[in-house]
C-alpha cells in the first residue's frame, strides 16, 4: 500500500472530492495542477496522496506508457458479477458514477488513433509544465525541478487506491479526465467520416437525440487546448453555462458585458460544437440591453444549433417526454426578445409565427410555452384592439366559432385556458404553475363576462371573484409541490452541490482567500453560511422562482383588496424565503412593497432609511428601486407642499416610460396620475381635471378597469376641492361602483370618506348621512388604512360631529378632540402640513369654545408652525438629494 488513510472519514472525503471533481461546474476549465494539489491539501491528511500523484507522473513519457496506464486502469473496475474478488481489495463498481466515468475514459482511449495518443501525451506534459514553477512554492517537499517535466500521473496510485469502499479508487478521475480530452475529438471526426458526406448536420443531430448514457459523453465532450487550459466534460460545461444563465438573470449588473462575452468567446473557441455558449452570449446582450447584438446572437445560436439543442432541456421534466427544439423555439425566443425591448408588434408577429410552426411540427410543449408567452405579452402591453395586430384572428384560433370578434381580454382568457390545458396535458409543471399565476392575475383585474353574446343569459354578477384568484394562486403552488412526489428530483442534480463543495474546500484551504473574495450582495447563499456541511436546496431554482412569484402576486392581490398587513406578510415571506432563487428585479419588488408599506404606516423618515438600505443592496440601476424613490419623493413633496419639487419628480417619472404606445402602461398611468395630483395640489383644477379625464380615456381604451377606479376618485377629489360637490358626487359614485366590482376594499373605504366629505360640503343637513357613511367605512380604515387615510377619516368624523346641530361640544368634547388629536399626530408623522394645519385649527377652535386657553394656544402655535412650513417648503431641505 503506497499510502494509508488516517481515518475512514479521510477516505470518504477523498471519494467525495473526486466525485465533486467530475461534477462541479464552477468553470469550464479543469483546475490546473497547482489548484488540484492545493485542493488535495485542503482535504487534510492526504499529503501522501499528492506525493504519489506527483512522484509517479514520471512514468508516462512515451505512448506505450499511456497504453499501460489504461490497461491498469481497467483493472480498477470490478469485474462483472460472479467473478471472484480478492479479499482486501475493494473495486470500483462499474455502474457507479465514477465507474461510468472511467469506463468512458477507457473507451475513448481505445478508440483513439495513434495521432490522438501523441496529442494526449503532449497535452499531459503541457498540463504538468504549466505550473511547475508555482508548484515548488506550493509544496514543501524536496522534488527536483527536473522531475517536474515528467509529472505525469501514475496508474499505480489508483490501482492501489482501489481499496476505497464505495467511492472506490476514483482518484484517477483526474488523470483519466486529462486523458479523455482529445480522444473524443477523434471519435467525433471518426463518426463524421463514416457519415454520408453530404449531410453532417442531420446525422449529428440524430446522434445527439438518442442520448443514452455513453454516447453524449463520448460524442463531443472532451477537448483540449495547449494554451488555454483543459476543458471539462460536456455535462460540466453545460452545467457551468446553466449556472451562469441563472446568475445572469438574477443579477445582470454583476456581469460586465465585455468581460463575460470574452469568457464565452474563449469557451466557443475551445468547444466550437457547443453552441450553448452562443445562447449565453445572447442572454448577456439581452440583460445588458444591447438590442442589436442580442438579435445577432440569437439568430446565430439557432442557426448553429439548428434548433436541435432545445432550450427546455434544463427544465426539470424528463426530456425524453418532450422534445422542444427546432425553430419554433427560435421564434419563441425572438418573440420574448422583442417583447423585452418593447416592440410588442414585432413580438406578436414572431410569436404567431412560432405558434404556426409549432403546430406544423406537432410541437405541443413549445406551443404551450408560446401561448403562455403571448398571454404574458397581452397582459403586459396595452393593446386596445387586436385586429390589425395579429394578421387574422384565425391564426391563433381564438375565435369561438361564432363569428363574434373577441376583445383583447377575451382572447387573453381563451389563450390562457388553452395554454393551461396543454400544459396540464403535457405535464409541464412549471408552465402549469405559471399559467395558474397568469390566470390569477387575470382574475384579479378582469370581470369575466360570458363569451356568448346571445342566448339565455345566466344571471351573472359582474364582479371579480377573489376566491378564484385565491384558488389559482393555491393551485399554482400546489402544482409545484408535485416536484417532490414525482421523483423528479434526481434531474435536479446540476452539479451545484459539487461546485459549492469544491468552492468551500478552497475557501477552507486558504482562509485569506475567502476574505479576498468580495462578498457580492446577492451571492450570499446557504452554502456560504453553512460551509460545506450544507445540503443544497432540493428544489430547482425555476420552481422556487415560480413559487416565490405566487407570494409576490399574493402581496399584489392584497394590495388591491386592501389588506396592508397581508401585503407586508407576503412580501416578507418572499424576501426571506425566496431571496436565493429570485431575480434581482423581483426581489427588489418585494423590498419596494415593504418600503411602501413603511412609508404609508410609519412616515417618510423610516421609509427613506429603508430605501437607503435597499439602494445599497441593489444597484442604483434597478428600475423598481428607482421608481420607488421617485414615488416617495413625490408623495413627500406633495404633503410638504413643495410643489416645485413634486413637478420635477413628476417629469422624471414621465421620462422613465418608453414613448412607444402600449408599452410601460402602468408607469405611464402612474405618471399622469401623479401629474394630475400635483396640479390639484397647486389648485389648477381645470388642468388637473383635463389630465385626469385624459387618463381615464386611456385607461378605458386599454381596458385598465382597476386604474379607472383610482382615476375616478381623483376626479371626484378635484371637483371636491374646486367646490363643485355635485359633480364630484357623480364621480365618486362611479368610482365606488368600480371598487365594488373589483373588490377594492381599501379604495372603496377611501372613496366613501370622500363621499362623506362631499355630502358634508353640501351643507349641515347632510351631516347625518355623512357620518353614517364614515362609520360604515371606519372598520376597514382603522384595520388596514394608512396614516393619511386614517387621519382623513378622523377629521371627517370630527367635522361631521361639529356640523351636526344636535351635537354640543361642551357636552362631549372628547368625541371630537380624540379623533382630531389622533389625526394631528399621524399627519405630523407624515409631514402633511396642509391637513395637519386643518386639524390644529379645528382643535384650537374647539379649545377656544371650551375655554381651555393654554391648550388653545398650543394648538394655535402648531397651526401656525404648519402653515409657515407649508408656505416655505424650501426651508426643510434636509431631504436626501435625489439624483435619480
Amino acid at each position, binding site marked *: 500500500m503506497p499510502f494509508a488513510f488516517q481515518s475512514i472519514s479521510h477516505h470518504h472525503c477523498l471519494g467525495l472530492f473526486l466525485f465533486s471533481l467530475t461534477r462541479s461546474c464552477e468553470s469550464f476549465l479543469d483546475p490546473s495542477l497547482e489548484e488540484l494539489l492545493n485542493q488535495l491539501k485542503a482535504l487534510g491528511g492526504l499529503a501522501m496522496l499528492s506525493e504519489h500523484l506527483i512522484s509517479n507522473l514520471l512514468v508516462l513519457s512515451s505512448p506505450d506508457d499511456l497504453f499501460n496506464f489504461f490497461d491498469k486502469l481497467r483493472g480498477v473496475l470490478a469485474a462483472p458479477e460472479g467473478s471472484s474478488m480478492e479479499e482486501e481489495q475493494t473495486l470500483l463498481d462499474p455502474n457507479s458514477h465514477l465507474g461510468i466515468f472511467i469506463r468512458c475514459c477507457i473507451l475513448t482511449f481505445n478508440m483513439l488513433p495513434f495521432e490522438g495518443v501523441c496529442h494526449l501525451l503532449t497535452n499531459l506534459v503541457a498540463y504538468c509544465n504549466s505550473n511547475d514553477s508555482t508548484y515548488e512554492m506550493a509544496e514543501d517537499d524536496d522534488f527536483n525541478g527536473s522531475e517536474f517535466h515528467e509529472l505525469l500521473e501514475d496508474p499505480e496510485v489508483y490501482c492501489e487506491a482501489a481499496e476505497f469502499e464505495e467511492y472506490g479508487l476514483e482518484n484517477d478521475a483526474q488523470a483519466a479526465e486529462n486523458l479523455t480530452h482529445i480522444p473524443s475529438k477523434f471519435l467525433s*471526426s471518426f463518426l*463524421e467520416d463514416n457519415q454520408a458526406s453530404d449531410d453532417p*448536420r442531420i446525422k449529428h443531430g440524430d446522434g445527439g437525440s438518442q442520448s443514452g448514457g455513453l454516447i453524449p459523453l463520448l460524442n463531443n465532450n472532451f477537448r483540449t487546448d495547449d494554451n488555454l487550459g483543459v476543458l471539462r466534460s460536456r455535462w460540466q460545461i453545460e452545467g457551468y453555462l446553466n449556472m451562469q444563465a441563472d446568475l445572469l438573470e438574477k443579477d445582470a449588473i454583476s456581469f460586465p458585458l465585455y468581460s463575460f462575452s470574452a469568457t464565452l468567446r474563449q469557451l466557443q473557441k475551445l468547444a466550437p460544437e457547443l453552441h450553448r455558449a452562443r445562447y449565453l452570449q445572447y442572454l448577456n446582450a439581452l440583460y445588458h440591453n444591447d438590442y442589436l447584438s442580442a438579435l445577432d446572437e440569437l439568430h446565430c445560436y439557432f442557426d448553429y444549433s439548428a434548433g436541435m439543442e432545445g432550450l427546455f432541456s434544463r427544465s426539470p421534466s424528463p426530456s425524453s417526454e418532450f422534445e422542444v427544439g427546432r425553430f419554433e423555439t427560435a421564434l419563441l425566443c425572438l418573440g420574448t426578445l422583442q417583447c423585452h425591448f418593447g416592440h410588442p408588434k414585432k413580438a406578436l408577429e414572431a410569436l404567431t*409565427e412560432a405558434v404556426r410552426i409549432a403546430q406544423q411540427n406537432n410541437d405541443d410543449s413549445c406551443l404551450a410555452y408560446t401561448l403562455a408567452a403571448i398571454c404574458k405579452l397581452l397582459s403586459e402591453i396595452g393593446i386596445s384592439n387586436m385586429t390589425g395586430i395579429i394578421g387574422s384572428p384565425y391564426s391563433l384560433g381564438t375565435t369561438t366559432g361564432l363569428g363574434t370578434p373577441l376583445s383583447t381580454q377575451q382572447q387573453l382568457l381563451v389563450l390562457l385556458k388553452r395554454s393551461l390545458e396543454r400544459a396540464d396535458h403535457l405535464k409541464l409543471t412549471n408552465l402549469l404553475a405559471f399559467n395558474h399565476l397568469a390566470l390569477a392575475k387575470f382574475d384579479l383585474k378582469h370581470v369575466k363576462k360570458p363569451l356568448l353574446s346571445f342566448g339565455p343569459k345566466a344571471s351573472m354578477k359582474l364582479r371579480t371573484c377573489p376566491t378564484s384568484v385565491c384558488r389559482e394562486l393555491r393551485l399554482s403552488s400546489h402544482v409545484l409541490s408535485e416536484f417532490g412526489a414525482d421523483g423528479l428530483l434526481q434531474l435536479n442534480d446540476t452539479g451545484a452541490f459539487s461546485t459549492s463543495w469544491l468552492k468551500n474546500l478552497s475557501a477552507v484551504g486558504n482562509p485569506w482567500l475567502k476574505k479576498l473574495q468580495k462578498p457580492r450582495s446577492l451571492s450570499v447563499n446557504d452554502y456560504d453560511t453553512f460551509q460545506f456541511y450544507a445540503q443544497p436546496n432540493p428544489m430547482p431554482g425555476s420552481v422556487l422562482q415560480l413559487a416565490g412569484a405566487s407570494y409576490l402576486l399574493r402581496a399584489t392581490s392584497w394590495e388591491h383588496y386592501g389588506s396592508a398587513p397581508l401585503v407586508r406578510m407576503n412580501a416578507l415571506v418572499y424576501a426571506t424565503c425566496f431571496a436565493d432563487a429570485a431575480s434581482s428585479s423581483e426581489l427588489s419588488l418585494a423590498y419596494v412593497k415593504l418600503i411602501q408599506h413603511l412609508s404609508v404606516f410609519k412616515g417618510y423618515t423610516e421609509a427613506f432609511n429603508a430605501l437607503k438600505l435597499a439602494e445599497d443592496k441593489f444597484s442604483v440601476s434597478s428600475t423598481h428601486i428607482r421608481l420607488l424613490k421617485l414615488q416617495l419623493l413625490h408623495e413627500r413633496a406633495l404633503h410638504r407642499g413643495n410643489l416645485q419639487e413634486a413637478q420635477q419628480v413628476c417629469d422624471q417619472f414621465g421620462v422613465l416610460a418608453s414613448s412607444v404606445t402600449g408599452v410601460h402602461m402602468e408607469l405611464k398611468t402612474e405618471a399622469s396620475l401623479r401629474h394630475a395630483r400635483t396640479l390639484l395640489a397647486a389648485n389648477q383644477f381645470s388642468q388637473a381635471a383635463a389630465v385626469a379625464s385624459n387618463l381615464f380615456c386611456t385607461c378605458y381604451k386599454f381596458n385598465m378597469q382597476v386604474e379607472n377606479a383610482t382615476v375616478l376618485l381623483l376626479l371626484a377629489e378635484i371637483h371636491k376641492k374646486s367646490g363643485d360637490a355635485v359633480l364630484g358626487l357623480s364621480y365618486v359614485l362611479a368610482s365606488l361602483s368600480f371598487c365594488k366590482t373589483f373588490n377594492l376594499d381599501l379604495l372603496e373605504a377611501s372613496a366613501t370618506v370622500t363621499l362623506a366629505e362631499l355630502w358634508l360640503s353640501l351643507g349641515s343637513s347632510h351631516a347625518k348621512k355623512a357620518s353614517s357613511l364614515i362609520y360604515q367605512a371606519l372598520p376597514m380604515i382603522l384595520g388596514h388604512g394608512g396614516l393619511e387615510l386614517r387621519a382623513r377619516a378622523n377629521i371627517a368624523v370630527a367635522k361631521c360631529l361639529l356640523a351636526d346641530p344636535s351635537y354640543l361640544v361642551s357636552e362631549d368634547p372628547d368625541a371630537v378632540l380624540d379623533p382630531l388629536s389622533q389625526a394631528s399626530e399621524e399627519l405630523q408623522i407624515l409631514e402633511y402640513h396642509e391637513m395637519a394645519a386643518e386639524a390644529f385649527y379645528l382643535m384650537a377652535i374647539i379649545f377656544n369654545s371650551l375655554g381651555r386657553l393654554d391648550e388653545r394656544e398650543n394648538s394655535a402655535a402648531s397651526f401656525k408652525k404648519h402653515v409657515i412650513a407649508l408656505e416655505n417648503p424650501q426651508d426643510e431641505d434636509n431631504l436626501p438629494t435625489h439624483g435619480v
Partner: protein
Amino acid sequence: MSSKESYRVELRSAARQLSDRCLYSAAKWAAELLIDIEPDVHAPASSASSSAASARATPSTSSAARPLSHLHPDASAYRRRLRSAAASGDIAATPPAGVSYISTPVPDDDGFNSDGGNDRYLLAKSYFDCREYRRAAHTLRGQTGKKTGFLRCYALYLAGEKRKEEEMIELDGSLGKSDVVNSELISLERELSSLRRIGSIDSFDLYLYGLILKDKGCESLAVTVFVESVNSFPWNWSAWSELQSLCTNTDTLTKLNLKNHWMKDFFLASTYQELKMHEEALKRYECLLGVFRSSDYIQSQIATALYSLRELDEAEVIFEDLLRNDPYRVESMDIYSNLLYAKECFSALSFLAHRVFLTDKYRPESCCIIANYYSLKGQHEKSVLYFRRALKLNRKYLSAWTLMGHEYVEMKNTPAAIDAYRRAIEINPRDYRAWYGLGQTYEVMNMPFYALYYFRKSSCLQPNDSRLWVAMAQCYESAPLQMLEEAIKCYTRAANSNDSEGIALHQLAKLHGVLGHSEQAAFFYKKDLERMEAEGRQGPNMVEAMLYLARYYKSEKKFEEAEFYCTRLLDYTGPERETAKSLLRGLRIAQTAFPSMDIGHFGS
C-alpha cells in the same frame, strides 16, 4: 529608359528576390506582370505613336499624358528627364491620373559573408523546394544574413502551418471548425518583434511578421506592419493581398498610410473590388491596362468586376479571350463558371469543366467549376460532393460555402444549408449572398418573419440589389404576415434599383390594386406595360395589366384609353378576350348614354 523599361527592371529584380526567398506566388505574380508589359518599340517615333495608341485604347488614361506626348515627340527623352528628377527622390514615370508615383529603389540583395553561408543557403533552399521545411530551417540555424534569416523564419512558419493543417485533419476532420494554432507563432513573433524593435528588419521579414500577427488576431498591428512592408518593397503582391484582406471597410482603407507606388493601384483596384466598389475598381484597372497591356491578371479582374455588375456578355467575351491566351489557366475560372451558370450555357460550362479537370483537378477552383456544372444539370448531390472537395482543399473558399448552401437548399436539407451559409458568414460577415441564402432557407421553411432578419442584413450590405428587396417584400406579402404596406415599401426600393426581372413593378401594381389605391395601381400597371413592351415580352402579366387599365379608365370615364386597352386585349386569346369584348360593349353604351360628356372629351 522609358517608364516601362523601369517597370521592367523593377519587376525583374523583384521576381528574382522573391523567388530567392521562396515567396513563390508573389514571384509568380511579378513575373507574370513582367511579361505583360507592353513591349517597347525602339524607334522613338513609333514609341510615341504606340503610347498615343495606348491612350486611345484606354480612354481613361489621363488627359495630361496625351498632350505631353504630342508636344514631345520624343516622349522617352522627356521621361528620361523625369526619371532623373526621380533620382532626387520625386516623380517617376507618367502617372496615369495626374498623380505622381514615388519610386522605390530596388533593394540590393545582401551578399553573403562567406562561401559557406551561401552553400548553406543553397542547401536550405533545396530542402525548402522539396518541402522539407523543418529541415531547411535547421540547416540555416545560426546564420546571420538577412536572406538566410528570412528563409529560416519562413521555413519555420510554413512547417508550423503544415503541422497545423495536419492537426486540423487529425482533430476535427477537414471541414470541422477547429481551434488549432500554428505552434511556431509565438517564438517567431518574439524573434521578429525584437528585430523590428532594433530596426534591422527588412520588408520580407515584415511581411512574415504581419502574417504571424494576423494569425494571432492582432489585426491593427498587422495592418501597420504590412504597410511598412509594402512601403519598403512594393512588389510583394502577397503582402498587398494580405493587407487587402484586412481592409474590410473603406475607413481602414482610407486611413492607410501608403506610398504612392504604382503597385498601390493594383492594390486599390483589387480592394475596391473586394469592397464591392466595382465601378472604381474598373476605372483603376483600365488605367493599369495602359501599361500592362496584355496582363491576364488585369483582364480577369475586369471580367470579374463586370460579372459583379451583371454585365454578363462583356465579361464572357473577356473570359473567352483569357482562356484563348492561356488555355491552362485555372485562376478566376470559377467566376467564369458562375457566369456560364447564370447564362445557363450547358455545353460551354462542361467544356470549361473538362479543361480545368485536365489541367489540375485538385484545385479548389476546378472542383467548384465541376460542382457548378452538376448544379446546372440538377444533380445536386454530386454538386455538393465537389463543393465539399473544393472546401477540403481550401476551407476559406467563401463562394463555395455559399454555393454549397444553395445546393443544400435545392436538396431541401435546410439544416445543412444553414450550416454552410453560416460558415460562409463566419469567413466573411459581409457576404450578402450567404445572408440572402439564410433568409431564403427560412422562407422555404415557412418562417417569413424569421427570414426577414436575414434579408434585412443582406440588403443592408448590398442596398442596390433589387433581388434582395424583392425577397424581403415577398416575405412581407406572404400569407401569414400580410404586411402589405411594408411590402409596398420594399417593392418600391426594388423598382428604384433597376429590377431587371420586372417583378417589382407588377407586384406594386397588384398590391396597390388590392389595397384599393387604384390610381397608383394604374400608374404601376402602365409602367410595367411600358417596360414589357420595351423588352418585347409577352405574357399573362401583360394581359392582366391591360385588363386592369381598361377597367380603371372605364371607371374614370376615360373611354378613349379604355377602348385602346380593350382593343389591344382582343389580340389575345383566352377568357380575357371575352371580357374585353363585353367591356367594349359596355363602353359603347356608356359613350352613347352620355353624349355630352363624350363631346366634351373630344373637345379637350
